[in-house]
């Protein structure tokens, strides 16, 4: 089975003042292609650090981090930027769309930094926008969209570069429960079509949608919980948002 990402004994330390903060103390796990992993933990558990490392935004202190076949633990800044542009799909809690760009242009941004934007690429951006249900709003600005719609644009943007995995950081944190369900359903659908998803959350209901939950505590993996019934089929997980819809 091919691996989208592989983390081996990953350590990250920060120096704050004279003090050393051990954010990650040796974390190892694999993300096979087509997987849907939720990284969970309380604040300070190291999940944000892990997210930054998986997202190629930071260098680990030690250990290795494979994206595909490439160990990026010591990659240059420019190489990391190339990987972010080419192989990682970010979805953020606060959507992080660029306000002066239209929906279509926001989806194009990663391609822009890959230095490619052919007619076919543009066509693909339109298809992605249609896929997330925004075909009619291509020329709207983010401020003209609802939170759920903005997050759909962000998801379309995360897919545009055909990434190793989608890296979603609390993607439903700013959404009401109905919209949360819509977005999570979209993730389910994407995973079902073969996309790999790494989701960072502190909400159990959201985490339960994944195939596996990696629970972090104090910079270490506390537990890896396999979910026998991932997706919306998980009745008890789905029950909460549905109940709150009324």
């Amino acid at each position, binding site marked *: 089975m091919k691996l989208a990402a592989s983390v081996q004994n990953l350590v990250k330390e920060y120096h704050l003042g004279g003090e050393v903060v051990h954010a990650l103390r040796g974390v190892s796990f694999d993300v096979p292609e087509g997987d849907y992993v939720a990284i969970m933990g309380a604040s300070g558990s190291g999940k944000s650090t892990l997210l*930054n490392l998986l*997202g190629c*935004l*930071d260098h680990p202190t030690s250990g290795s981090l494979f994206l595909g076949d490439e160990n990026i633990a010591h990659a240059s*800044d*420019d190489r990391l*930027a*190339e*990987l*972010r*542009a*080419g192989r990682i799909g*970010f979805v*953020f809690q606060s959507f*992080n*769309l*660029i*306000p*002066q*760009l239209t929906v279509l242009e926001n989806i194009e*941004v*990663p391609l*822009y*930094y*890959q*230095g490619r*934007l052919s007619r076919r690429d543009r066509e693909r951006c339109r298809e992605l926008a249609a896929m997330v249900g925004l075909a009619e709003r291509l020329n709207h600005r983010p401020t003209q969209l609802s939170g759920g719609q903005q997050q759909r644009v962000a998801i379309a*943007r995360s897919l545009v*570069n055909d990434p190793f995995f989608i890296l979603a950081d609390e993607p439903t944190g700013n959404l009401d429960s109905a919209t949360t369900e819509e977005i999570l359903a979209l993730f389910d659908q994407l995973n079902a079509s073969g996309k790999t998803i790494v989701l960072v959350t502190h909400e159990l209901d959201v985490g339960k949608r994944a195939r596996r939950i990696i629970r972090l505590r104090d910079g270490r993996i506390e537990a890896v919980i396999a979910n026998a019934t991932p997706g919306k089929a998980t009745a008890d997980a789905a029950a909460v948002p549905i109940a709150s819809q009324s």
Partner: protein
Amino acid sequence: MLIWIRTFRLGTKSLMLHPLRSLLTVLGIFIGVASVIWLLAIGEGISRKAQEQIESLGATNIIVRTIKPPSDQITTTSLLLQYGITRADYERLSQTIPTITRAIRIRELRQRFTRGGYEVDGRLVACTPEYKDMLRLELDRGRFIQDVDLEQAKNYCVLSAGVAEKLFPYEDPVHKIIRVEESFYEVVGVCKPKMPSAGIGGSMAAQDFSNDVYIPITTLWWRIGDVVISRRAGSLEGEEVQLSQITFQVDNVKNVIPTAEIIKSLLAKYHRMEDYGVTVPLELLEQARITRMMFMIFMGLIAAISLVVGGIGIMNIMLATVTERTREIGIRRALGAKRRDIIRQFLVETIVLSTVGGLTGILVGFTCPLFTSLLKSGVETFLPGVYGALPDIVKTMRPVIVPASLPLAFGISVAIGVIFGLYPARRAANMDPIEALRHE
């Protein structure tokens, strides 16, 4: 190339988000560039005018002029004051210096010209036919003084445009008679108007040719002579002056300065008083060139200051923009922008600002001649006193847009965009993407 075009489009889009702010930023550069072009154009206009006036004296000419000597040098107690360059000087200088190709002598007097009920106070210039070529006088009608007139000491005269207009407002003056003091002269020609030329003989005032009347020099010798008696404060005063001016034409520009030296030393030998002045237009030209350069440097300095101020304005705005758009920078970095992409993005924005300022500045720079003429006529209409006090050179000056100032101004404005944009752009690029993403 494509990426630059895209970055350019993105940059203009970002700038258009704050149109007023961008406009005000552009204004700084706009004023700087427009003032570079205007100041250079006005400077060039003034110095070109000055140069024209000097050149009208002739670059290969040396002008020796009679000056009334300072009173402390006058030793004679006689009523008749003898001074100035003489016919002997003329012979001596024109015969002995081989580099001199032509020597033109004149004698001029302040006289009153009358005809019928009209009268003009002007300058009677006794001259030879060559005088016309030397001054580049053009005839409107009739002819100029000719050699025959000189030989026969004819009482013929040629009027300048100003005198002709005042004495003959409604008639053709040719073959009419005018009176100069006690003598009558027949008009044989009328000149076209001539612009004033640079002052000579130590005087800074421009020479005015509009009230001249030209007669053959021999006629003057026969009819008036060298002595002029004037009544002043109850006493008679007499002056004996043989020649007012000799203009020497030198064969080659290279020989002008040495020839002038020879003339000066020869004249010094025969004159005990400082009753003559030697003007070398070539020297004046050199001086004017230096003055012009100083002027340009000075003007350039002022313009440069305003451009730097504009540049600081750009930098200020870009630093604010970078802080304001920290989050956008974070997003772009997370989505794969390299540091140099961010630098490019912000640099392009500043360059767009400064280039727009530069281009509009150049466009407005072109209006300089129009604007100065409007300004001049405005001052003339509403502040006639101020206008009258302006020097001639300012009144007649036309701004000349220096072609080199256009690419210069444009280049400077782009350079200012790069120089003052680089720091904010680098600051944007060096942000930690994680921090920038967290920025609210």
